[in-house]
């Protein structure tokens, strides 16, 4: 609990860390309608694709600094000495990032969904899906950034982008499910299943990687 | 089973199929690409091993 408080304080005071990604998300979602003709009826469908890609990009940006800063100033070193389970610290760290970045983006994404397609149903369905996907993205990209720590985030993105492609396929199917209004809950449970596996496994792997970095 | 499918060398190069299309271009370009890329890889490794051998000496 103390850790949660500390991590929240650290991220909250660093406004470029959490406000930055959210603003980038807003900018992308605002820029997107400018590039297509407003009378185009297909805007509903392409909106969802743009939404997934924007979320993906913003989550990449958001995790860029997740371990690097703590590594450079020695906080990670102290954490590894103090806490027996580094994976717990990492879980909390990712959760805080989700709370300050993933959650607002989920709500904003739903808002944009309502604004562009003016369908309240869609907006409500988008919220849980976005909440889960942002959490998954944060976990996976944190893994990439842990691997490429001190070597720049481009490398991290390069090696983790292939890993999230299955998720993009699922999200593509969700678009169809929402449009046809069927089997929505099934997809939600599928995503939840993926999330629960990732939450259990990835922090352990990440802690292994970070320990190797601290050597 | 072991008879030549093609009657002449030019037949084998053009590889006209029963539907009239010539497939030789595709087949032979693939053969070329595969053999070339393998040969180049071999060459690259051989020279690199030679170079590092010289350095160690």
């Amino acid at each position, binding site marked *: 609990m103390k850790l949660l408080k500390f991590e929240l304080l650290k991220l909250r005071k660093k406004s470029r860390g959490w406000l930055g990604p959210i603003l980038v998300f807003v900018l992308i979602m605002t820029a997107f309608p400018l590039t297509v003709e407003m009378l185009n009826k297909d805007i509903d469908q392409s909106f969802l694709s743009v939404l997934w890609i924007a979320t993906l990009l913003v989550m990449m940006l958001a995790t860029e600094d997740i371990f690097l800063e703590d590594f450079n100033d020695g906080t990670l070193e102290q954490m590894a000495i103090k806490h027996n389970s580094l994976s717990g610290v990492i879980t909390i760290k990712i959760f805080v990032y989700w709370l300050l970045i993933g959650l607002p983006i989920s709500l904003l994404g739903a808002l944009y969904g309502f604004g562009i397609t003016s369908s309240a149903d869609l907006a409500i369905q988008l919220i849980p899906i976005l909440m889960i996907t942002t959490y998954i993205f944060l976990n996976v990209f944190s893994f990439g950034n842990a691997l490429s720590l001190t070597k720049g985030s481009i*490398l991290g993105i390069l*090696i983790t982008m*292939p890993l999230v*492609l*299955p998720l993009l396929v699922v999200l593509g199917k969700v678009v169809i499910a929402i449009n046809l209004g069927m089997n929505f809950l099934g997809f939600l449970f599928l995503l939840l299943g993926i999330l629960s596996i990732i939450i259990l496994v990835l922090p352990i792997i990440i802690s292994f990687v970070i320990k190797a970095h601290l050597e | 089973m072991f008879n030549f499918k093609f009657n002449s060398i030019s037949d084998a190069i053009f590889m006209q199929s029963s539907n009239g299309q010539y*497939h030789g271009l595709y*087949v032979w370009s693939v053969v070329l690409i595969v053999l070339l890329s393998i040969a180049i890889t071999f060459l690259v490794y051989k020279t690199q091993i030679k170079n590092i051998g010289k350095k160690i000496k």
Partner: protein
Amino acid sequence: MIKKFIHQFASPKTYLFQVDRAYPYIFYTSLSIYLGALFWGLFLTSEDFVQGNSYRIIYLHVPASFISQSLYLAMAFASAIFLIWKVKLSAYLVRSIAPIGAVTTFIALVSGAIWGIPTWGTWWAWDARIISTLILFIMYLGLISLHDSFTDNEKADKFLAILVIVGSVNIPIIKMSVEWWSTLHQTASITVTEKPAIDPSMLYPLFGSIIGFTGIVVCLVILSSKLQILKREKNKSWVKDYV
């Protein structure tokens, strides 16, 4: 006990000497098998009923795509050995397989694209297997760049092994998901469990080309691992004697 056994027989030195002895045999046998199978496949088999003569690309395409996936499996296996028993040789092998994997994946992609022109009428399709092969290609390149960006080789080995294992979990998932997404590619020509869908006269040269190509790729892996060992152990005294 297993640890002791592995460490004794997996020293880079013994590996290098054994492999040097076996190399010419593997190389010449597999090269002759491969060229023989290609000759058989390209000239002696009858043309396919549907695809015409363009089907002959199968003798080049299928071995490459088979090998590109098997190499990843081999890497995952070696990574696991490295992480569990800390065998240095397997770390070298992981690093040296990666570029060979990239080359074979590249061959599979290009030959597949050319094959697509006469049969599908398009050189590229957003299809399950093509995309997963492309992703495999990118992953191979990513693995290489991950390893090369670390100056500390021991760290690089560890991270590479971790990424390979995480990726190996993900590859079947990628394949399944993309297949689920859409598919245009023909189903596999040969599977272990089912009776082959193609004629035996076409099958034998295919097997021959797969075996021959595997041997050639093994030779490439041997060369690549030799380079890796020389690079990494260049300060050891036995390397100087060896060279």
